[in-house]
């Protein structure tokens, strides 16, 4: 086990993967549908997911379930912000280099903390909308 799993602790990506697996299983149970062909998961750039840890967790969590062998496809969704004050739009790439490791880590756990550390590059306002790329979600379940 490398970066994502020490002998004692497993990264919190496990919790996010747990939500994905549980939700898919719940959906299949409640809708009475059979095993899907594929599950498409959107991974928002802002949350800076460790994909190795996330994939490992997903594979562990779906073992022995109806979705054990189902393909999970990941689509990265680039983060996009829009200022409520002046309307300016910017990407995470535009501001990421100005963030320290601690700040990036904080945003990784709670993406909304970005409001405390990122301001509109044009007018300096903190009142912006995270239009895209916030976090992890199920985009599609394909049968």
């Amino acid at each position, binding site marked *: 086990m490398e970066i994502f799993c020490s002998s004692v*602790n497993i990264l919190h990506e496990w919790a*996010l993967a747990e939500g994905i697996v549980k939700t898919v299983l719940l959906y299949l149970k409640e809708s009475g549908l059979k095993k899907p062909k594929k599950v498409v998961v959107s991974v928002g750039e802002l949350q800076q997911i460790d994909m190795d840890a996330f994939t490992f967790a997903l594979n562990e969590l779906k073992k022995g379930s109806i979705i054990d062998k189902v393909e999970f496809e990941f689509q990265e969704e680039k983060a996009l912000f829009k200022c409520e004050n002046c309307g300016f739009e910017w990407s995470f790439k535009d501001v990421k280099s100005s963030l320290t490791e601690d700040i990036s880590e904080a945003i990784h756990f709670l993406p909304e903390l970005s409001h405390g550390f990122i301001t509109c590059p044009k007018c300096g306002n903190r009142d912006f909308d995270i239009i895209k790329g916030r976090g992890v979600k199920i985009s599609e379940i394909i049968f």
Partner: protein
Amino acid sequence: MDPRISLIPERLSNVRRIIPVVSGKGGVGKSLISTMLAVALSDLGYKTALLDLDIYGSTCHTIMGGEKLEFVEDKGVIPPMIHGVKFMSPIIFSQNNIPLPLRGNEITDLILEIFAITIWGETDILVIDMPPGLGEELLDLMKHVKKAEYLVITTPSKLSLRVVERIVDLLETSNKKILGILGNMCKSYDDILKFSQEKNLRYLGCLPFDKDIEGAIGNIEAIKKTTLYKEVREIAKKVG
């Protein structure tokens, strides 16, 4: 499909009771009462946790003197322990006194994220410090945390009681359990007692204004020596 929602019942399954501390108005002392209540419950032997959901005005960590908090990451986030209380707040991730101007859905997103990733473990009572008002924080709690028992705080002021009436109405019409009404900063308790009788709610008491509390903020041992804390401890015995 939001993958966090399915996690919430499981995350809270080992939490026996959940007590959100609410009011209509701000400035009635919710954060102080929430924090002291959590510490008192822990002192009484309960496995206690405290969640600060007052996103804009989070101060429970300041009250407890916990400005630098370390959490453990293990299949989620294990809250740090401070003064015998497991403590969770957005502040433990940022450790800065930053403003968090959030709109609508972003408040919900933050709350769902906290509930999805926090590993509470075996907990007798989770106290939640709630912000004033009837916004997303309260609505999301009502929607996703079915076993919550709401502790309503008010001062004797007509202004506070007027707004508390609205929150009581909201909780009752939504069939939510109200643990009781607790007054704070009281010189007289008649109006609060009368209000609780009119609404057929449990009257838990009326905490006095304590001039020593401000100076004790940030030092739990000093807080424990105040009259206010001793009274809150009696309340903890009633609600625990």
